C-alpha cells in the first residue's frame, strides 16, 4: 500500500477525465511526454502487463529478453522449473546482463565485475568477498511484485499492488485467452515459431485502436480487395459493407475488446482458408481432445481477434505484444499461434498466414503502420491544440449493452471506446486530485 501512496505523488497534472471523453479523445494523449510518463506508472507499473508465454522457455536456463513498461526484463525458466521475471540490469552498477533477445544460461553473469545471479535473480556471488560485509552484498535482481500465468500466458505487475491477475482479466479477458489456447488440441500453445518486430514511429495506443478497428479494413486495406481478400476467409467477414455481415465489435470491459468474426464464417475452418481435408489430423485431434461438439465449435469459430489490456493482441493466427518505447516510438512483435497436434500441416499453414498478415513486409500491417505514423504527425506537431480531438463516435447511438458488455456492428468504434473507457478509469484513479491543479488542462502544455 506504500506503493499506492507513492503513485499519488508522481502524477503530472493531466486531467484524464477531460482528455478522454465518451466519444472523443484528445490528440495530446498520443504525443505528450507527461502522459507517457503517467502511463508508464499507472498502466505499466501499477497494473498487469503481458510478458511472454511459458512455451518460449521450456527448459531450465532458457530465457527471453522482454520489455515490461519502462524496464528491460528477462523471463527465465529456473532450475526448479519455475518461471521467473527479473530486471535485465545488474544490481551493482546497472549493466545490461543479456544483450541478446534469447538464450540458455546456467546463470546470469555481469560482464563488468562478474557478479553472478541465479536464474531467479538471487545473487550467487561477487568476486573478492572480503570487501563486503558478510562476504556478499545483500542485493538481488529487481523483480516485479507479482508474476502470474494464465493458460501459459505470463503476466507481471511491477508494483505488486494490482490485485489478482484473474481480476485484471475478468471473464472477458479470460475467455479470449481460453479461446486462443483451446485452438491447441492439448490446450497448450507452442509459441516457438519466433517473434518478428515491426517498428512504428507512432504512439503505442494506435495499436490497440487499429488492431481492433473493424471500420478501416475495407478502406486502409483496400489494396487487398482485388487480390488476397477475394475468395479468402475475410471476404465474408469484412468486405460486405455496412450491415451486411454478422460480425460484431465487442467491449468486454476492463479494456479487453474483440472484433468478433465468428457469426460471419460461412464454413468450418473459414478462418484458416482451407478445407478440412487439408488438416484432417488436426481436426481429429481436436475431436479426440474436446469431444465432437466443442471441437466443431472451435473449427467454426477459429482463434479470436482481440485485445487484452494493455499490451496483448490475440490476432487470430498471431499473438502480438506492444512495447511502448517513447511517446512517438512503438515496437509491435508477433509470433505465430502454433499448436500441439499430430498434424504438421496446421502449424505450417498458421506460419504462412502469420507471414501474410503481420510484419513490415506483410500484406496488412504496413498500412496500419503508415496510418498510425500519419496520425501521430498530426498530434506531434500540435500537442497543445484545443481542437486536436480524435473522434470516436461511430455507432455510439446504436450499440447495445448488457452485463457489463457492449457490442455493435463490426464497423462501429465500440472497441476503441472500450479501450479508452478503461484507460480513463486507470489513468484518472489518482488523476482526480491532480486535475485541480493549474496544469490540469491540455492547453497548458508540458507540465
Amino acid at each position, binding site marked *: 500500500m506504500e506503493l499506492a501512496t507513492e503513485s499519488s505523488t508522481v502524477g503530472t497534472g493531466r486531467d484524464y477525465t477531460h482528455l478522454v471523453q465518451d466519444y472523443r479523445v484528445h490528440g495530446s494523449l498520443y504525443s505528450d511526454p507527461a502522459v507517457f510518463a503517467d502511463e508508464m506508472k499507472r498502466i505499466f507499473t501499477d497494473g498487469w502487463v503481458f510478458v511472454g508465454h511459458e512455451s518460449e522457455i521450456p527448459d531450465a536456463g532458457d530465457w527471453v529478453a522482454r520489455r515490461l513498461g519502462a524496464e528491460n526484463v528477462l523471463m527465465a525458466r529456473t532450475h526448479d522449473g519455475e518461471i521467473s521475471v527479473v530486471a535485465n540490469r545488474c544490481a551493482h552498477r546497472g549493466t545490461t546482463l543479456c544483450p541478446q*533477445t534469447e538464450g540458455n544460461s546456467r546463470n546470469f553473469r555481469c560482464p563488468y565485475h562478474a557478479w553472478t545471479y541465479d536464474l531467479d535473480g538471487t545473487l550467487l556471488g561477487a568476486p573478492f568477498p572480503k570487501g563486503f560485509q558478510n562476504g556478499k552484498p545483500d542485493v538481488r535482481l529487481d523483480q516485479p511484485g507479482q508474476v502470474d500465468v494464465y493458460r501459459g500466458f505470463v503476466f507481471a505487475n511491477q508494483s505488486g499492488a494490482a490485485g489478482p491477475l484473474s481480476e485484471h482479466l475478468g471473464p472477458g479477458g479470460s475467455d479470449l485467452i481460453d479461446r486462443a489456447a483451446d485452438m491447441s488440441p492439448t490446450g497448450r500453445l507452442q509459441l516457438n*515459431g*519466433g*517473434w*518478428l*518486430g*515491426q*517498428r*512504428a*514511429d507512432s504512439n503505442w495506443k494506435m495499436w490497440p485502436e487499429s488492431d481492433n478497428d473493424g471500420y478501416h479494413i475495407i478502406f*486502409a486495406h*483496400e*489494396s*487487398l480487395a*482485388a*487480390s*488476397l481478400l477475394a475468395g479468402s476467409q475475410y471476404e465474408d467477414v469484412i468486405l460486405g459493407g455496412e450491415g451486411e455481415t454478422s460480425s460484431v465489435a465487442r467491449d468486454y470491459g476492463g479494456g479487453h475488446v474483440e472484433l468478433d468474426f465468428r457469426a460471419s464464417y460461412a464454413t468450418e475452418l473459414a478462418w484458416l482458408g482451407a478445407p478440412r481435408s487439408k488438416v484432417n489430423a488436426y481436426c481429429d485431434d481436436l475431436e479426440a481432445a474436446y469431444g465432437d461438439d466443442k471441437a466443431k465449435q472451435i473449427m467454426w469459430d477459429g482463434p479470436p481477434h482481440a485485445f487484452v489490456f494493455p499490451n496483448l493482441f490475440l490476432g487470430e493466427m498471431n499473438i502480438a505484444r506492444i512495447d511502448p518505447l517513447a511517446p512517438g516510438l512503438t*515496437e*509491435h*512483435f*508477433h*509470433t*505465430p499461434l502454433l499448436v500441439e497436434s499430430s498434424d504438421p500441416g496446421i502449424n*505450417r499453414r498458421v*506460419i*504462412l498466414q*502469420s*507471414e*501474410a498478415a503481420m*510484419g*513490415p*513486409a506483410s*500484406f496488412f500491417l*504496413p*498500412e496500419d*503502420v*503508415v*496510418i498510425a*505514423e*500519419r496520425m*501521430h*504527425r498530426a498530434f506531434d506537431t500540435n500537442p497543445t491544440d484545443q481542437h486536436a480531438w480524435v473522434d470516436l463516435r461511430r455507432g455510439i447511438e446504436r450499440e447495445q449493452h448488457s452485463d457489463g458488455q457492449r457490442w455493435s456492428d463490426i464497423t462501429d468504434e465500440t472497441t476503441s471506446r472500450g479501450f479508452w473507457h478503461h484507460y480513463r478509469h486507470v489513468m484518472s484513479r489518482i488523476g482526480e486530485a491532480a486535475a485541480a491543479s493549474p496544469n490540469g488542462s491540455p492547453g497548458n502544455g508540458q507540465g
Partner: protein
Amino acid sequence: MSAVDGATHREIQEFLYHEAMLADESRYPEWLELVTDDIHYWVPAGDGDYEPGSRVSFLNDNRTRLATRITQLMSGRRYSQVPKSPMRRIISNIQVLAVHPDGDGDGGSADEYEVGSNFVLYEHAVQATNDMRIWVGRTTHRLRRTDEGLRIARKKIELVNSTSALPNMAFII
C-alpha cells in the same frame, strides 16, 4: 577466386545491377519478369539457418504470393508505398559461389549460379515520417540460365538487423 570465367561473371554482375535498378525504381512488372515460376523469395528472421516455413520470416514467397504482392503494389492503394519510396542501392562484393550444371534438374544443360553479394539500400520513407532509412544485408541469388537469359530462381536476403523491430519494408528488397 570465381567459379566462372570473366565474361560470365560480368554477365551476372550486369544482371544484378539491372535487377537492382528495377527494384529501386519500383518497376514491379519488369522486375517480376526476372523471376522463374518456381521462385523462392525469402527474407529470414535472424541468421536464416532454418527451414523456411518452420519459423516466421519477414518474407517467404512463392510465385503466387509474390504475384499477389505485386498486384497489391500496383493497385495504387498499398498506402505503405503511396507515394513509392525513392530508393537507391549499392550492390558490391559479388561472388559466384558455385555453379550447378542442370540446376533445375530437367535433364537439359541450363546452368544455375549461386551468387553472393552485399547491399546498402537508402530509402526515403516519404509516406509519413520522411526518414532516410538504411537497409544493409547479404543477398544470395540462385540464377538460372534460360532461353530468355538469366532468371532468379531463389533470392535470400539476410538483413544485418533482422532480429530488431524493422520499419515498413513494403517495397522490393
